[in-house]
């Protein structure tokens, strides 16, 4: 689908489900913008953003440029530490030492959900490919399976971003397994 269709599609979601969204390097930031804009501004749903691709600080900066209030978004940042990028501690950002600490990512998401969010939240993983660089496929698929089950029990939306350029069969299989819907945005 093209980005216009994607935006329309986002609007149709009314019930929590698990969606995988395949993006390319050229539309990566646009897609993030559409998702956050729809969930944060239209649906008014709290968002937990798990950043494994670029530091949460950079994403915040981009969102500010796009006019999306990043103060409404919680970050679980699991890449800043290993990239040795400077980290600013805010009560909206939780740092995980390494993207290999998958259990800790779940624990931090659970912490934010329990502490700040009641229900109807959105959890975004950015991205499965970044996690795949640091983890073996078996543990990654176990993680996503467990996480999706947990988020269903919490009636949370779950969006997994995947990068078209870095995709492979194994990643597609995992996504097929854990997603209710698979969207490809050209």
């Amino acid at each position, binding site marked *: 689908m093209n980005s216009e269709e994607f935006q329309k599609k986002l609007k149709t979601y009314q019930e929590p489900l698990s969606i995988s969204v395949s993006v390319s390097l050229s539309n990566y930031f646009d897609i993030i913008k559409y998702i956050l804009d729809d969930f944060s501004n239209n649906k008014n749903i709290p968002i937990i953003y798990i950043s494994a691709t670029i530091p949460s600080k950079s994403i915040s900066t981009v969102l500010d440029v796009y006019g999306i209030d990043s103060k409404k978004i919680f970050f679980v940042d699991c890449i800043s530490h290993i990239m040795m990028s400077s980290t600013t501690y805010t009560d909206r950002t939780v740092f995980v*030492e*390494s993207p*290999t600490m998958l*259990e800790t990512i779940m*624990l*931090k998401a*659970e*912490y934010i959900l329990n502490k700040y969010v009641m229900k109807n939240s959105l959890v975004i993983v950015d991205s499965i490919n970044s996690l795949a660089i640091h983890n073996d496929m078996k543990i990654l698929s*176990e*993680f996503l399976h467990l996480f999706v089950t947990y988020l269903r029990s919490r009636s949370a939306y779950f969006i997994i971003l995947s990068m078209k350029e870095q995709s492979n069969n194994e990643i597609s299989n995992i996504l097929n397994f854990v997603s209710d819907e698979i969207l490809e945005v050209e």
Partner: protein
Amino acid sequence: MEKVRERCLTGIEALDNILNGGIPKGNTVLITGSAGTGKTTLSIEFLVHGAMKGEKGLYISVTEASEKLLENLIVYDFFSKEMIQKGIIFIDIPEIYEKLGMNKLQFSMEDINLLIENIVKIVTEFNVKRVVIDSITSICYRLQTEEKIMEFILRLSKALSELGCTTFLVSELLPSAKGYSQYGVEEAVSDGIILLGNLERRGDLLRTLRVVKMRGTSHSRATYVLDITSIGILLVPLLKGGGELI
């Protein structure tokens, strides 16, 4: 069919789920692990959740002054330090030793009786429902023989159980230790064992928890990853990606 025993909820939701509804009331549970694995934190949270429900808690501090412990205690979102001090009785064991004139390095059978009597007295007087002894290892050190350790733990747990008390005995393990307790006796006579540990996986250090044994209930024996947070202890299953318990 097995009679279902009344439960004592730890209040740590995931742990109560692992235990299929909490600790069977009246059990004496060994909370064991090496230094810094979260034994004291877990035990205090157990007392805090009791206090929140109006169940009086007793924390007997053996190794560390309870004042210092309270200072360093994590600040919970759901219960203030003032409330903790109101709902939980903190006693430093040197005070009891002194009161009872127990000044020998090695305790006699008589000393043991005195100590148990004294604890039971406090429990009865304040209608205590949850007891933590942190740590039992330090007391065992002064009991020395296996017989005396066994006698002490068995009699104490029987007395407390009859009073409707659920008890945590904190056990200090050396990282190199085999088994679940310093003297071996503690684990044999406890109704339950909760093992806390550290796991190293490809350079990452994770805190872990496993229920090794719990009389009176079925339970998961899987290993969980633990996080200490201001909303209490959180647990998720350990992913099966390899790694070695250390």
